[in-house]
């Protein structure tokens, strides 16, 4: 449904190349972007290349409207030092979800094994466009309590999002737990996001799984008036949508434009050149899984039936 709507709109824009779109834009998850906000968006003719693919439509929808509510999503990054990019991208997606702008956000910080003693900085949040007064920070003493808190919060209908910030692959957050979170999120209509720091790819029940990496900032003379090598440009991320239950996957490098509080300069990349380490190092048929897990997912691939020899000796 929504691909048709997106395509129609984009064609309309290409045809007229207008700077402003007057009508409301319906996105995939049913969220309506009001026309006034559309007026501030960088025109789509500069947002998407002319010959775009389905993956690009998909990603564009996410960048414009944020993550759809009523489901579980996972964002991960490879190292703890990329935590800024991870949390930042999550918050920027959150700030794009306009329909829940007045509702609180629950941020559950599971205790980390190492001494990454980082807290959210409310002035930075306000700088990014997220009201720090909306945030409720929960700091339980164990991962088990953090998962319990996430389960309870997923049942709540008054939250804009529940963010579970964990590190690595705790044994308690397995396929059953993620399926339960997804179910609860769909019943209550809350958006549940798992932020996984320093992790590898793992199979779970999230609707979308993202891999976020920081990217050298995009410096453009057109927008900043800065020459290259002079200061830091707009915040840039390298985003790889690893899995999407309801659409296609893709990779993009996006820039967060602080002036308009939106994404811009999206450059889509081919899937084979993705930056996700798992794609490069690990053969395609196997998803690496953590070692401390009881229910290890089986190898994905072909099961070849071996011919059995009926018991005949000699």
């Amino acid at each position: 449904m929504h691909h048709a709507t997106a395509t129609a709109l984009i064609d309309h824009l290409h045809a007229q190349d207008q700077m402003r779109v007057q009508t409301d834009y319906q996105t995939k998850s049913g969220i309506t972007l009001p026309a006034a906000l559309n007026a501030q968006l960088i025109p789509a003719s500069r947002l998407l290349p002319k010959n775009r693919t389905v993956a690009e439509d998909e990603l564009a929808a996410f960048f414009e409207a944020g993550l759809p509510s009523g489901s579980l999503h996972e964002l991960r990054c490879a190292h703890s030092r990329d935590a800024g990019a991870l949390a930042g991208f999550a918050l920027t997606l959150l700030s794009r979800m306009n329909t829940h702008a007045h509702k609180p956000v629950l941020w559950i910080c599971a205790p980390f094994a190492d001494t990454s003693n980082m807290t959210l900085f409310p002035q930075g949040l306000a700088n990014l466009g997220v009201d720090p007064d909306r945030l409720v920070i929960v700091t339980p003493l164990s991962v088990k309590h953090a998962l319990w808190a996430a389960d309870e919060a997923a049942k709540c209908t008054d939250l804009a999002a529940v963010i579970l910030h964990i590190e690595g692959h705790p044994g308690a957050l397995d396929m059953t737990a993620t399926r339960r979170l997804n179910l609860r999120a769909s019943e209550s209509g809350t958006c549940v996001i798992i932020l996984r720091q320093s992790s590898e790819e793992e199979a779970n029940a999230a609707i979308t799984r993202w891999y976020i990496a920081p990217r050298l900032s995009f410096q453009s003379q057109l927008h900043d008036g800065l020459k290259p090598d002079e200061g830091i440009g707009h915040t840039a991320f390298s985003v790889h949508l690893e899995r999407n239950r309801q659409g296609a996957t893709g990779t993009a490098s996006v820039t967060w434009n602080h002036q308009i509080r939106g994404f811009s300069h999206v450059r889509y990349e081919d899937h084979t050149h993705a930056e996700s380490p798992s794609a490069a190092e690990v053969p395609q048929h196997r998803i690496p899984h953590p070692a401390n897990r009881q229910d290890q997912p089986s190898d994905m691939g072909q099961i070849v039936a071996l011919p059995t020899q009926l018991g005949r000796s000699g």
Partner: protein
Amino acid sequence: MAVIASVKGALRLSALNQTARQAGLHKDQTLTDARAIVPKLDCHEADEAADAALLAAIADWCERYTPLLSIDTINGLPGLMLDITGCAHLFKGEDALRLDLISRLTAHGFVSNIAIAATPGAAWGIARYGDLDDSRIVATRAEREHVAPLPLEALRMAPKTVEELKQVGLKTIGCIVDLPRGPLSLRFGRPLLRRLDQALGREEETISPRMAVADLASERQFVDPISLQDDISRSILSLAGNLKPVLEKRALGARVLVLKLFRVDGERRMLSVVTANPEREPAHIEQLFQDRLASLHSPLDAGFGYDLIRLEIATSEPMLHQQADFVSKAPIADSYNALINRLGARLGTDRVQRFAMNDSHIPERSFGVLPSIRTSTAHSNASRTDMSQNMRTQAALSLADAEDVTELDTQLTRPILLLNRPEPVDVMAEIPEGLPQRFRWRKVLYEVAASEGPERIACEWWRDGRQALTRDYFKTEDRAGRRFWMFRLGLYDRESGRPHWYMHGLFP
């Protein structure tokens, strides 16, 4: 057997048991004398802290009778004072209450003297100095005849006054009751008369209870003690159901609820729950206590069972009755409030926090966290504090700047993650005030691709002293695109010889 303590420079006996008293020893006898009389005297060191703790435990358990009780240790004689006005009928009369208390204390191995009277003074005196054969329950306005035969120590006066009265020849209370009051107070002081009046009921005396007395409480006694978790939950549900109509009538809701569980064998356990908003619903209250029980480190040890469970409302707030709509299920903020209550009950109220702004320009001091349950609850309509108003006007201002002037940097100037303590970094930079070029943080080397700065944040000399150092903050980006916020502590020439660099935060 005796307990010895060092008094006035010599080891003396401070407490004796019955056999020691029968053998001829008495209190405050020196240990050497006592040993001379009874060579095989069993002596134990006096341990005041343990004695006080034991008395406190007994007081905790005696709360089953009444919440108004106090420990008094006047003149070194430990005891408890319970105000049982209006409670006696729950135990089928004062006599039955007294027998119940005596039997329980005796079962624990304590020897106790209990007296019930209309005034604390009379009860104190009769309990300690009264005749053992007498009935220990004194009716109202009959104190005079019961108190008269008691010695003067029963009036809780200083020993010096008692000595003086004895020298004059007054030995019992009956002697001084009828004396003219003017000369008595002149000679021996006003406290004597006050104590006398208190004992006889002419002057009011109230006891100050050990713990704050709850506004409302509902309790249930069990003939057959219960110990199962399910039974406890069900009794909490019914007790909360008893309290709900009273709360509704007074238009109150409970904020702090305390559950007291009294064990058969004398221990008492207390659990408290704090809610973010006034609560009345029994189901919610029971759920909160279940979460609280689940959060205990070790499960409740019921021993032989609980025979009294009391639910008290320690703090309550006005709460208007909410009209439930036929169409919608619940008021809109209900789900969020219930979630915050549950998280607070299970994880602890200090683990569910919100930001609060401080008036400081040092980044790590410019904000704090407050427990969510203490601040105002609703997110949509409630009034916000002034500080968060400042926060939002600041954010609004920065946006306004962005719209006006596009040439000035409208970049992100503050990181979103801040390290709790700035971590030292090895930086290679030009001196005196050059940008960093390469740095090593947490044993990883980073090459700087671009950087911005410095942003100078000076010290707070009124807090840290005049010697505190200035910070020059730089936003640096490495070759992979990670953006850091680090600062150099101290100006090169003016403040310190060799300034150090620290990492403070991460940008998105």
